[in-house]
């Protein structure tokens, strides 16, 4: 019973932190369950997938009602994130746990460095997207026709090919490591495809649901999701993320970010030790 309450509390903490820092909870749930509760990594990934789905579906519903998310773009890209998740979910059961731990350690390190740099340079992605990538290929009329249909009010979408490749990659990573993948999708849509940050964030959130569904069904059928763990953790993450979204503007994120970088760094080192057996 006590373990159950700790699991709810841990999930809530992951939800609050994830929500405050715009990361979703996935990146924290897996280390919480593996390092904190001794679960096998693959099982933790399965639980994390359903937990991030709960929070993303609730938020995505609100975004859709307010017409912030770009449903057409989101659905077009999620066709590819779901395909990536299908591949990732299928190979997740073939990969060694130590290799998965190594991949997770690499992900944590990447996120820690990104967050550290964002904090030290006060860099954010609210600037207008630069032309990082070449203009859309002229002469490809069919692709241009698709792009014309995916834009929203006041912006046009570009670089569909890059978007498709990035979405496939985001789907694979999501399925293997149990994360929503916003860390890939938001910069992809905002910087490479020219989607405003607010729309990119909302659309990325919307896409988590179907992406994680594609891999979650594989985890369920393979017996990779334990309902006794997923229930308390999912409830905790949901409550935490809901509270975090309301606390957001009242918290000084600078110190929180530093704390988070330290936590991520420590967790990455623990995951690395796990990878080395």
């Amino acid at each position, binding site marked *: 019973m006590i373990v159950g309450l700790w699991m709810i509390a841990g999930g809530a903490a992951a939800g609050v932190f994830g929500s405050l820092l715009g990361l979703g909870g996935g990146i924290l749930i897996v280390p919480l369950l593996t390092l904190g509760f001794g679960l096998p990594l693959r099982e933790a990934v399965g639980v994390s997938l359903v937990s991030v789905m709960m929070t993303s579906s609730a938020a995505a519903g609100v975004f859709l009602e307010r017409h912030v998310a770009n449903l057409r773009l989101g659905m077009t890209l999620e066709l590819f994130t779901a395909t990536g998740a*299908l591949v990732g979910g299928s190979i997740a059961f073939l990969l060694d746990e130590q290799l998965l731990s190594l991949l997770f350690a690499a992900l944590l390190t990447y996120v820690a460095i990104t967050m550290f740099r964002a904090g030290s340079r006060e860099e954010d992605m609210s600037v207008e997207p630069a032309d990082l990538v070449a203009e859309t290929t002229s002469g490809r009329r069919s692709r241009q026709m698709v792009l014309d249909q995916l834009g929203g009010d006041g912006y046009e979408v570009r670089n569909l090919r890059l978007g498709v490749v990035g979405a496939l990659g985001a789907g694979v990573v999501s399925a293997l490591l149990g994360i929503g993948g916003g860390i890939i999708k938001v910069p992809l849509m905002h910087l490479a495809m020219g989607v405003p940050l607010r729309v990119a964030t909302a659309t990325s959130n919307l896409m988590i649901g179907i992406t994680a569904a594609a891999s979650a069904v594989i985890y369920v059928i393979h*017996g990779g999701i334990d*309902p*006794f763990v997923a229930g308390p953790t999912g409830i905790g993450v949901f409550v935490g993320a809901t509270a975090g979204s309301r606390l957001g503007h009242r918290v000084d994120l600078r110190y929180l970010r530093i704390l988070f970088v330290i936590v991520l760094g420590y967790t990455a080192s623990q995951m690395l030790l796990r990878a080395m057996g």
Partner: protein
Amino acid sequence: MIRSGRAGAMQAERLIGRLLTGVTYVSVALLLVGVGLLIAAGISPVSGGPGMDPARLVSDLLGLKPAGFLWLGLLAVIAAPVTRVSVALVAYIRDEDWMMVGVSTAILLVIATAIGSAVVSTA
């Protein structure tokens, strides 16, 4: 957002949003009942829960067993986005938006492939 000029599209988007939120809250409620029963029965979450067995779901629910409510809640979590795409597909068919009809259908096919491939590989 569904582009302006498409009849009923904004309304469909609002409906899909409400549906997504509604199903999510239903799943949270089911999970809460499941967790409550789990705690009341004094079962440790790390004791290893049962896998998904459709044949046992109804009897577990009727017998007020935590696994029944937890699995139904988890299935609702997974079903929420799939339902969202299905409703969007119907809306796009009504709008005769064939590109998005193709995209929605393809997404549902990917989900079906995921289920099929997992069933085959575990058989």
